[in-house]
């Protein structure tokens, strides 16, 4: 547990929760990032403006963080083939499963949804099993 960062992680989590409450209160929208992203490409096209603005804010936060707080993390030795395979699985899975860590996790658990609790347990379990295989078996 050498890398445990309880204070920063807890405050960061609170900010994520506040941002989700903000989007719901002001726009009547659920801050599920996979849903916001997939909705950009849905047919028929829905309201895209708020989606683009939210995602632009998300990316701008990263640029600001690297400029003022800490440089971008660099990872060596992670192949682009793995990145592509993982991205496909995350995109496909969140589309048919109806959400990700934010939609089912932060927002779904916050409204005490049993459907979201099941999703969170399944993706946490699958993520832990996969990381075990990637780090200790392969």
């Amino acid at each position, binding site marked *: 547990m050498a890398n445990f960062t309880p204070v920063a992680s807890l405050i960061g989590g609170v900010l994520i929760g506040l941002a989700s409450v903000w989007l719901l209160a002001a726009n009547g929208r659920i801050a599920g990032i996979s849903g916001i992203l997939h909705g950009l490409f849905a047919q028929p096209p829905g309201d895209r403006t708020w989606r683009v603005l939210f995602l632009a804010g998300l990316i701008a936060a990263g640029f600001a963080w690297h400029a003022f707080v800490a440089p971008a993390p660099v990872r060596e030795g992670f192949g682009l083939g793995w990145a592509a395979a993982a991205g496909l699985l995350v995109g496909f899975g969140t589309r048919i499963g109806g959400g990700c860590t934010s939609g089912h996790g932060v*927002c779904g658990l916050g409204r005490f949804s049993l459907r979201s609790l099941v999703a969170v347990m399944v993706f946490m379990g699958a993520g832990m099993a996969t990381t075990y295989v990637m780090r200790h078996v392969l």
Partner: protein
Amino acid sequence: MIHALGAGLLFGVGLWLSGMANPRKVLDFLDITGDWDPSLLLVMGGAVAVTAIFFRPLIRLKRIEFLEAIDSRLVAGAALFGVGWGIAGYCPGPAITALSNLSSESAVFVAAMVAGGLAAQAAAWRRRAAT
């Protein structure tokens, strides 16, 4: 509309401050048999502590309806998502804010994520057309 931009910014700052935007830290959390880093439990705990207070009254006020089905699509989708998360350490929010790293890793991941969503959508259309 300025609210959507502001909420996105705040969400992104939360991801970076919490460590969620660093895939190495995410994988250290998922790797429970290794040198386990439980930080991300606190990210989820802090976020849900806030949404648990405000979400239900706001949802009633806004009259938003949700799917409640617990079916094979939910479980299969969550499982596939989890496998991808465990390979790369990115879920959708962190992957998108990590585009600011200007690394080929995050660009490839996000492009593939969009493609995966389109593939799921095309599969759903094909099934609807067949029935």
